[in-house]
């Protein structure tokens, strides 16, 4: 994960932009593009879509910049806007479930699954997160993938910390159960071949 940009630079840029210096927003975009695109990608696993969603989030942030009062950290404020944007962009879309891309497994060998290394298993679990209900997926992505602490995750999602904690726990349980089911299915198929 890229280091969090310094808050002072953001606060100064916000002041300039609100005063009419649109070019100052360029600094915010450059400092935050990696985190916002990565966050979007973690909800869709599609680069083009992730960049489109992140762009929309930046535009919404620009339009709402005058509402930033500094009560919360700029990172929290921006991430909350990004989350709302991604939520509305992804609304109505089928989750890109945990389909295993067999074309990525190395060719050769009698067992087609011999190339399924830990790395691929890990990727499969990450994709399985996308198939979780949104109320579990969002805390998991923010807490684990974005490395936010419980308080920050709760702030971004506008939920009490206890609720976030419960959803994280339930989300992990669901993920483990689903992963276990899938791996069991594959192992059966492998043993049959």
């Amino acid at each position, binding site marked *: 994960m890229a280091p969090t940009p310094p808050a002072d630079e953001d606060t100064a840029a916000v002041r300039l932009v609100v005063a009419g210096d649109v070019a100052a927003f*360029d600094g915010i975009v450059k400092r935050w593009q*990696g985190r916002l695109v*990565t966050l979007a990608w973690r909800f869709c696993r599609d680069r083009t879509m992730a960049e489109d969603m992140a762009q929309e989030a*930046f535009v919404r942030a620009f339009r709402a910049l005058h509402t930033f009062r500094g009560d919360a950290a700029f990172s929290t404020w921006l991430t909350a806007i990004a989350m709302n944007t991604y939520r509305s962009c992804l609304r109505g879309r089928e989750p890109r479930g945990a389909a295993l891309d067999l074309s990525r497994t190395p060719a050769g060998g009698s067992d087609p699954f011999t190339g399924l290394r830990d790395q691929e298993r890990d990727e499969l*679990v990450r994709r399985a997160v996308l198939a979780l209900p949104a109320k579990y997926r969002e805390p998991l992505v923010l807490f*684990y993938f974005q490395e936010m602490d419980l308080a920050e995750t709760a702030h971004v999602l506008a939920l009490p910390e206890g609720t976030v904690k419960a959803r994280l726990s339930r989300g992990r349980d669901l993920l483990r159960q689903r992963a276990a089911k899938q791996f069991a299915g594959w192992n059966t198929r492998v043993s049959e071949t």
Partner: protein
Amino acid sequence: MIREPDMDDLDRILANDETLVPSSGFAAGVMDVVRNAADEPPPLAFPWWRFIVGVLGCIVWSGAAISVLGQLDVRGPADPLAPIGLSGLSFAQWTLTIVIVTIAACGLRFLRHHR
């Protein structure tokens, strides 16, 4: 055989996802869109004064209509609200009450929607 991930594996896997580097022209593209957004005229503010004048006009008009109709002393064929003690209201009072309640309900809905 593929080993099923346990909770520790899940924590490790979730915490170690890779980072996506944006395309080289991403920031420039965003700034183009932002500049276009900045050049757009600001959204029109809701015309509160016209709204208030309209509501007041409705009230005055309703009051005038009620006063005219009240002189006709029209009453309903029955008095269905007698059991709850509201049988004494005249037609004009009833109409005025209904108009006020309707306007208040519409106003509340509008305010909640535009808040």
